[in-house]
């Protein structure tokens, strides 16, 4: 289990982190979301030891994080960095070796990753001749090559085409299934909703919501009852909770908690009911509310 406790960090006058805590269990995919400047990158850099926190604790499997433990982690920094003049496979292999892999182990891991990330044809091209998205695949390969014990990825999906997004999602899911905790930050909330077991929402250096996605949804989100009525008599919903709007000539009622059966009866009397059901809030809605 990877844990961060009450991380604080200030840059001069800006308080970037004001007590950030998070927990990621083995095999859990953790989505880290928050507005620009909320403190995601700062948190991840502190976890990786690239930046020092002013205060706070970090632990992995109950032990304080050390340099040696972190060497086993895989990291994709926000600011991508590769040797531009090095060849793709050569570079992935080099990072494998730097993480302490033997020559044959690094070679086979490189071959496998290059293949699976669709870089086989570009393996002997220098990085600077690749498109941005392909460079990002190399960056990911570099983060994955040494079979990391923990994965920390700062906006790994930005700039990828849908095919690459799927390839990356699959690669991450596979690592997760192998028991590796994965943390990634993203602004693509539908993606986070689709992939993650748990989320953390950070706002202005504080965690404002976090935990398993369903719990967060249940705790933070208000579910809404949605009723769509065709040919409805005007004013039918007066006195009922919620608000009515008109869409394509149909009345749409969105109601917070209330007596759903009473609402259904009123709707049936008012016209033809086309839709009736409870709506789960999307992560985007939860996010908007949490950071508001």
């Amino acid at each position: 289990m990877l844990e961060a406790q009450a991380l604080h960090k200030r840059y001069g006058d800006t308080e970037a982190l004001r007590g950030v805590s998070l927990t990621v269990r083995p095999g859990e995919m953790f989505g880290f979301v928050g507005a620009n400047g909320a403190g995601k990158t700062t948190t991840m850099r502190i976890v990786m030891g690239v930046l020092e926190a002013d205060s706070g604790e970090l632990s992995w499997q109950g032990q304080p994080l050390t340099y040696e433990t972190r060497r086993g982690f895989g990291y994709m920094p926000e600011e991508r960095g590769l040797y531009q003049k090095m060849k793709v496979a050569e570079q992935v292999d080099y990072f494998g070796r730097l993480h302490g892999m033997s020559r044959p182990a690094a070679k086979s891991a490189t071959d496998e990753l290059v293949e699976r990330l669709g870089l086989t044809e570009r393996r002997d091209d220098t990085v600077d001749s690749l498109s941005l998205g392909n460079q990002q695949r190399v960056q990911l390969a570099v983060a994955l090559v040494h079979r990391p014990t923990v994965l920390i990825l700062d906006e790994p999906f930005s700039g990828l085409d849908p095919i690459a997004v799927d390839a990356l999602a699959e690669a991450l899911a596979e690592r997760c299934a192998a028991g590796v905790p994965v943390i990634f930050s993203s602004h693509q909330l539908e993606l986070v909703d689709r992939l993650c077991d748990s989320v953390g929402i950070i706002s202005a250096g504080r965690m404002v919501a976090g935990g398993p996605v369903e719990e967060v949804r249940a705790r933070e989100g208000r579910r809404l009852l949605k009723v769509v009525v065709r040919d409805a008599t005007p004013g039918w919903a007066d006195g009922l909770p919620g608000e009515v709007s008109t869409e394509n000539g149909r009345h749409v009622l969105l109601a917070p908690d209330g007596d759903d059966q009473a609402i259904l009866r009123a709707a049936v009397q008012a016209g033809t009911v086309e839709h009736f059901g409870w709506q789960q809030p999307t992560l985007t809605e939860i996010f908007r509310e949490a950071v508001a």
Partner: protein
Amino acid sequence: MSNVWLVARREIAVRGRTKGFLIGLLVSALLVVALAFIPKLLGGNDSYTVGVVGAGSAGFETAVKPLAEAEQAEVAFRKLPDEAAARAALADGDLDAAVLDGTKLLADGEVSQQLGLFLQSAHRALQTEERLRAAGLDPGKVTEAMRVPPLTEVSVSTVAGDAGVRAGIATLIVLVLFFLLISSVTSVAMGVVEEKGSRIVELLLTSIRPWQLLGGKIIGLGALGLVNLLVVIVAGLGASLVTGLATDLPPGITGIAISAVIWFLLGYAFFSAMAAAFGALVSRQEDVSSVLTPMTTLLMATYLVAFYAVTDPSGSVARTLSLIPPFSSMVMPVRMAVGEVQLWEIALAGGLMIVAVVLVLLAGARIYQRAVLRTGARVRLSDVMR
């Protein structure tokens, strides 16, 4: 430690196959070879052909022979029927000079200095002998009296060999050391900035320690500099063997070359640690040269005093600076090439330089470690020195 080698190997593999490095290697080797050929081209040739015309010119051959042998030159003589034939041969370049009736010396322009000396000395000897005989002295005695042994050359120091050649070698050492130092050391700084600017350092430092990254880079690029130096030495010595210049090289040239290599390594360690520390302060290649100014100034100063030391190797300035790091890294090899250096001086200079190298490496690694992750604006030295 294995990480240091991994980093060093990468530097060698990547930098070693760049055009810049290969061109530098080729150009420096060619320059040294050219230098070895210049004496042959200018002072040229020490084999001559001299034409002789008329009876009075006889005896030149026997008189010139011992003189030429002493100087390791070759003079061939050719008999010609008359002055016109001599003039034609001179104009065609078949002859270097022609002696006419033992009274005139013909040449196309001026006779080369060495050949002129041979012929004039021979002439003087022949004429003296002739006149003494004419004065009625016993020809046997005259010949006996004329056989004067040359002055024996004895060097008052342990230094052997031509002082001019030694100064030339010292100059060459200064030039080669300077250019190799400045290019290797600049590529260390460029490499540091490249990694910092591209943010790859953030990734690297999650898998290896800063000192391993820095050490590997310094060792790798130093190895390339060393290869370049060895190529220069081999090319230079090889070319001087081919051109025959090698016979003029002073004894102990191997020792001089070895000391140049050792001093190069010490100087490189010193300046590259400085370059890495300064380089780590900036994030953009454009800022490298300005941030390196203090280091380049020191290197230039070392270069200039070393040049001065070539002209006055035993003066007190050269003697003092040959002990003080980092000046010793260039002044000491100069002094060792040009003249006599006491063993204790070498030991002291070496010891002080090693101490300085260790201190600069420690300080450099510390600055590097603190500055290299601070991307963005230029980091102030005072911020990372505390």
